[in-house]
């Protein structure tokens, strides 16, 4: 098991390296003088020169990349151009809310998606199945922002059920919980569709397996067959596929955070890009990319736990 974990972790090193390299190369594509861009339009030539020397921009590209990697690994991501705070501390504040939002979304949408997918598979071909398929196709065809705006419009504004602006403290307080409800609902609603669909496919495949026929032949109750034999085995591919949907979830989170003014990394990234705050933008994109890699790593490891055959 530990070997499997180490193996997967080592495999993600080249990807991480690629992410850093791409982040670095993107900075090379910036039109004009990077030092000038980072310094901002008001920077004097002396300041620009200082930035150039500090960042090693007058050295060869390969050296620059190594310097950049060294700085990133030491947690030095530069300073935000807008409010002159260290990028790393801005990110440290934003990463918690993003993780909260993701967890709050997964906690309710994955179980419901799995339940819907199983119900659809069990009722294959009849009205219930078709209804669930239709709802999940509609789900994957709807932009996150549409769901978010509708929830703000009705649940937030007209019916005054829940707050829809920002975060209000930790989740164990009433206020904090109320504020995360609508963002988590938004993100979860678009995630149910894919999960239900994947579960249905996986469950249908398992239902044809010999051991399911054996279980039925033993005279087990249909409920037991479905829960013990079908669902448990169908969950393995579903977990993997949820990992592959991490990018989809990340994109949804960026949009959701922006709509609900949720103070997470996604909103930080979008704000930084719109304000042309290059160091902050680069730092937050890097964090998003790394979290994507970490999610996939966690899924891989989980996969090994659920299916010991993989971990060998």
């Amino acid at each position, binding site marked *: 098991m530990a070997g499997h974990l180490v193996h997967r972790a080592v495999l993600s090193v080249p990807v991480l390296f690629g992410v850093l390299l791409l982040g670095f190369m*993107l900075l090379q594509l910036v039109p004009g003088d990077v030092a000038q861009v980072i310094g901002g339009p008001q920077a004097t030539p002396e300041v620009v020169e200082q930035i150039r020397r500090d960042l090693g921009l007058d050295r060869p590209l390969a050296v620059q990349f190594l310097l950049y990697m060294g700085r990133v690994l030491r947690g030095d991501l530069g300073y935000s151009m807008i409010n002159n705070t260290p990028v790393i501390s801005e990110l440290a504040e934003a990463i918690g809310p993003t993780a909260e939002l993701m967890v709050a979304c997964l906690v309710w949408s994955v179980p419901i998606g799995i339940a819907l997918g199983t119900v659809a598979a069990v009722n294959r071909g009849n009205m219930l199945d078709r209804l669930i398929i239709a709802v999940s196709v*509609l789900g994957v*065809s709807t932009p996150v*922002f549409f769901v978010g*705006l509708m929830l703000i419009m009705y649940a937030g504004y007209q019916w005054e059920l829940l707050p829809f602006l920002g975060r209000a403290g930790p989740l164990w307080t009433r206020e904090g919980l109320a504020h995360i409800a609508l963002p988590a609902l938004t993100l979860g609603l678009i995630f149910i569709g894919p999960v239900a669909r994947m579960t249905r496919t996986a469950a249908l495949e398992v239902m044809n397996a010999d051991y399911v026929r054996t279980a039925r032949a033993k005279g087990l109750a249909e409920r037991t067959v479905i829960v013990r034999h079908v669902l448990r085995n169908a969950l393995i591919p579903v977990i993997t*596929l949820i990992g592959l949907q991490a*990018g989809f979830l990340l994109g949804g989170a960026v949009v959701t955070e922006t709509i609900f003014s949720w103070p997470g990394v996604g909103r930080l990234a979008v704000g930084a890009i719109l304000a042309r705050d290059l160091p902050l933008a680069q730092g937050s*994109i890097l964090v998003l*990319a790394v979290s994507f890699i970490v999610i996939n790593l966690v899924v891989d490891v989980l996969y090994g736990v659920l299916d010991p055959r993989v971990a060998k």
Partner: protein
Amino acid sequence: MAQSTATTTATTTAPAAPAAASRPPSALRRLFRDRLALAAAVILVLLVAAAILAPWLAPNDPYLTNTRLRMLPPVWEGRGRWQFLLGTDGLGRCLFSRVLFGLRATLLMGLIATAIGGAVGLALGLLAAFYRRLDGWLMHLADILLSFPAILLGLAFAAVVGPGMTAVVVSLAIATIPTVARVTRASALVVMGQDFIEAGRAIGLNDRTLLTRYLALNCISSVFVYLTLRFGQVILLGSALSFLGLGAQPPAAELGTMASAGRNELFLAPHIAVIPSFVIVLLVLCANVLGDALRDLLDPRLRNG
């Protein structure tokens, strides 16, 4: 998803791929026996036609602002006017005309990104299957690209070249490449295992003819099916980026940008945000329904996605 389909198709060498290409008319007829797919195809054709004919169909200038006619509701609500079928937006511009032009921009964005990404992905996938020496390298490259979700590519490009349609189209095209390459490679490997490739070699055909005539034509149907499904996702991602302000810039009419602008008047005039969003849903829904039907018909192996 792409990874799982790639491995399953590569291992189960079912000799099925080239059959569909030889009888397109009957496949089309079977497709349209599925009423839902037929409806989706009709709506898509209508939407595309509306987008192409936008300059002639639009009753008003989509960019003409009028402060006295701000936030008019659609005609089906009491205060609506027939001159503005879908009402006006926050600056008094005709929403119907803007939706037509916005549809044009959104469709064009999706088509260009899907076409570029699809073409490059197809080429890479074919090369990987044909020249086995390249295979490992190309697929490693695809894996690294896959570890950059499309939304991050969009953010990164917008950060570097500045927000705009170029950043969106380029990032969506790049994000499309690795998955298309994987789908192409998987179906090309099946084709490569068949006798007619060997026969082609035996009669002395050069690599170029083998690649384009023998291999590419036999893979094109699976890739096309995949691209139809991908098209919907590209539209969703593109409009999300535009919604964030990273795509088409105001005053340009683009559905995502328009939905975003509607946020300002969400409580006073919800139709300004709702109508463009609804058109996006319609577009993506039809692409997905049609893609699903095509897949079941032409390439059931992709079904896991």
